[in-house]
């Protein structure tokens, strides 16, 4: 007989009587509805899979133990089990359902606060102060090029014109300024992080 023609109540009875294939038909018939119901609450494939499995483990145990007494209402009964397990899941995780960004678009990339927090702002200003003090330690010609390049955003051509040296000399001074800065940092074990 075609299993599609048999109603749920008969399948449940057949299953309780020991016909295992009746369970396969019941799961096949209702899996999509139950799975979609769980997914609509938890928005996570893996959790949905777990809750779906737990739901049917409960269904199987209840039926085999002969505790099922809701004839003709199989799907609502299973849905209620799934619903209770979803609630258990959220209780266990101590939180309410949240949007999971399952797709490519992440809403927090738009809403995110790019500003530094108070602590990071303090660290940043301290680092900047330290760097300024280190620059003061450099020889005058190197310091001049570095300040023009990094703080005044001048090109090496402009620096060479302003200081009256060739571009190559300006580049060389910049290179030595950075080498010397690194030396001072290493020698004094200074940590510059933000």
């Amino acid at each position, binding site marked *: 007989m075609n299993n599609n023609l048999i109603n749920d109540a008969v399948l449940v009875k057949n299953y309780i009587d020991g016909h295992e294939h009746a369970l396969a038909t019941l799961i096949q018939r209702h899996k999509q509805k139950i799975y979609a119901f769980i997914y609509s609450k938890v928005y996570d494939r893996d959790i949905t*899979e777990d809750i779906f499995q737990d739901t049917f483990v409960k269904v199987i145990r209840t039926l085999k*133990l002969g505790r099922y007494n809701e004839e003709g209402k199989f799907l609502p009964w299973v849905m209620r089990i799934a619903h209770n397990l979803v609630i258990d899941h959220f209780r266990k995780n101590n939180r309410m359902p949240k949007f999971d960004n399952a797709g490519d678009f992440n809403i927090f990339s738009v809403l995110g606060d790019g500003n530094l927090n108070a602590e990071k702002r303090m660290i940043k200003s301290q680092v900047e102060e330290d760097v300024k003090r280190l620059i003061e330690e450099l020889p005058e010609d190197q310091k001049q090029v570095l300040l023009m390049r990094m703080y005044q955003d001048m090109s090496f051509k402009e620096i060479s014109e302003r200081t009256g040296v060739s571009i190559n000399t300006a580049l060389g001074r910049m290179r030595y300024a950075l080498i010397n800065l690194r030396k001072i940092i290493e020698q004094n074990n200074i940590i510059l992080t933000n």
Partner: protein
Amino acid sequence: MAKLYSNCTPKSQNLQPKDETIKHLLDYSKALSVICYNKLKFEALLN
């Protein structure tokens, strides 16, 4: 009027449990045996 575009909703996705999950459930069902003894019922998993 401007058209509204949005990402695919979960409804359009194939929302179905994995075949392994179904197989596991059917295997679990076959393995689960209830033994009755003096009005008491015991569950046993027979592998």
